[in-house]
């Protein structure tokens, strides 16, 4: 029964092609049957993503115009939440901290990751070992990692101050000092995130045409010149990809803040996500938290567009 129905439906590999117009009644029936099957297969996922992602996003936007504490019904207050956010110095600080954090854990780390990837792209005997080591923090839970760093940063018995004391540099109260807390958090974020950036660059380097380097060598270009004239431009698409996923990741930094500093001291390490968390789950201001998360999303969109401009250039 099934045997007769599909061979006359032309199939293409391109998923964007519209379904072909069936020529006979039998194939029309077959198309309807396959349509039903397609919907049945995708239905659980549509239901789940719809309920747990699509509806929540719309609800977040709607709630951002309300005053809502869970216990009483939401009250419509228009743009009041947004007005309040723009007058809130703590949220301003959180936004700035997020931008600073993103700057150091994304573009700066990407540059280092690119250099490591280029180095690892050579025939080194320990290549796989190096790659494993650089990638190890990426697969480990951020909470566990933050716990280890909390201990490394410990002013009394921590490893960092221990090493510094051997060299003769006075130690710091890293996470308790408003000057040092944000750099410490950034260090942890950069340390953990370098592996994934490196990995994508390694994959992209496999696709760079070797004849380009041959031609450059004939023209007398040295290794540094080759790096900037060939490697960097050829890695542009990968750079765009890494940039976008890293920005999205960096903007959502939460776990290490929760463990390392709780946003302090004096709000020096609080982030936009942390303010969303505080508003919603410590102060029970669901409307305010929603407005803050809408702003977070908008900033992420803006950053993505800027990133696209910066890395894609004329390719558009």
């Amino acid at each position, binding site marked *: 029964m*099934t045997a007769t129905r*599909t*061979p006359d439906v032309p199939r293409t590999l391109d*998923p964007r092609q519209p*379904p072909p117009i069936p020529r006979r009644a039998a194939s029309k029936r077959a198309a309807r049957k*396959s*349509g039903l099957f397609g*919907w049945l*297969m*995708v239905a659980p*996922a*549509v239901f*789940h993503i719809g309920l*747990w992602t*699509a*509806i*929540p*996003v719309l609800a977040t936007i709607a*709630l951002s115009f309300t005053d809502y504490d869970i216990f009483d019904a939401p009250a419509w207050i228009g743009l009041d939440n947004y007005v309040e956010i723009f007058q809130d110095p703590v949220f301003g600080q959180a936004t700035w901290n997020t931008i600073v954090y993103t700057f150091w854990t994304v573009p700066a780390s990407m540059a280092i990751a690119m250099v490591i990837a280029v*180095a*690892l*792209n*050579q025939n080194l005997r320990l290549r796989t070992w190096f790659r*494993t*080591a*650089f*990638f*190890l*923090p990426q*697969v*480990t*839970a951020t*909470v*566990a990692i933050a*716990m*280890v760093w909390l*201990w*490394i940063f410990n002013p009394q*018995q921590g*490893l960092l101050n*221990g090493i510094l*004391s*051997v060299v003769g540099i006075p130690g710091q109260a890293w996470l308790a000092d408003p000057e040092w807390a944000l750099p410490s958090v950034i260090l942890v974020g950069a340390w953990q995130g370098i592996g994934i950036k490196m*990995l994508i660059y390694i994959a992209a380097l496999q696709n760079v045409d*070797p004849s380009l*380097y*041959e031609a*450059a060598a004939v023209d007398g270009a040295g*290794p540094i010149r*080759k*790096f900037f004239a060939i*490697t960097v431009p050829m890695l542009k698409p990968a750079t765009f990809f*890494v940039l976008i*996923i890293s920005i*999205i990741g960096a*903007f959502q930094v939460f776990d290490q803040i929760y463990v390392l500093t709780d946003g302090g001291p004096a709000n020096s390490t609080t982030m936009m*996500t942390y303010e969303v*968390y505080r508003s*919603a789950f410590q102060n029970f201001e669901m409307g305010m938290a929603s407005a803050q*998360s809408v702003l977070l999303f908008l900033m992420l969109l803006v950053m993505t567009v800027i990133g696209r401009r910066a890395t894609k250039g004329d390719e558009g």
Partner: protein
Amino acid sequence: MTAEPLTTRSLVTGAHEDFPTKPAGRRRNRRWIGRVVLNLALTLGALTMVVPFIWMIATSLKSPAELAEFPPTFLPKVWEWSNYPEALQAAPFATYFRNSFIISASHTIITLIFAAMAGYSLARIRFRGRELVFLGFVAMLMIPTYTKIVPQFLLVKFMPLFGGNDILGQGGSGWLNTWWALIIPGGLSATAIFLFRQFYLSLPTELAEAARIDGLSEFRIFSRIYTPLIKPAIATVALLTFQESWNNFLWPLLVTTRDDLRVIQVGLAVFQQLDGTQWQYLMAGTTMATIPMVLLFLFCQKYFIQGFTNAGIK
């Protein structure tokens, strides 16, 4: 021309100095020095990555007296293996561990079944509205966790007819402090669906046509013909899902307060807040939370790397 032939790798990195005008000996010397410097720099970098892990394990095996020393010892003088059983006494890490495992395994199973079905449907079956569904999923890929977390929490809290709630979701605690909240909302992600679609798209369509001529049903074509062909992809998605779920912190933190439902990451954070000075136990717990993922990664590196380069998750 004594120099070795140009290899792809050396060309890509430009490390290969191959100017025929230079004397061969000097060239080889310079290359040798370059190699040593490169290896040293990479070793230093790799050590920076690994030392915190060694420090974690070393701390978990030290006595409180040794932990109080400054400057700290790196490796323990006396290896206190008893720290581990004592840590399991100090906090219910075994329960946390079991909970994390149950949740991660459930998320992986749910994802493998339903994301594969959806991915296959979007890649291989023609139906009205398919493009719209696909675009919808792609849009959902972009949504940050924090832009949906408040309503997700409210959905859980006001889940009708659960946890003492009436049909309108009022009066009780809904799914809060239940396995439902831990397992269902995080069970499926748009990323997994997207990955599965890509994998199924890479397979030829002729297989399905041949199978139809042989009289196989559409569901069997999916389950018996195509799915076995993407086994490596399944392994990749499974590992990524398991890892993501094992490492998740915020969601279990929000929806559970009961100790017997806590996952390992939340358990660690709570233990740190309550007994923050007992570093040997805290690091023992952290080691236990970390080791499963590290081992999984070391043994299945190929699939992890494939998955991370494809999806760029996290």
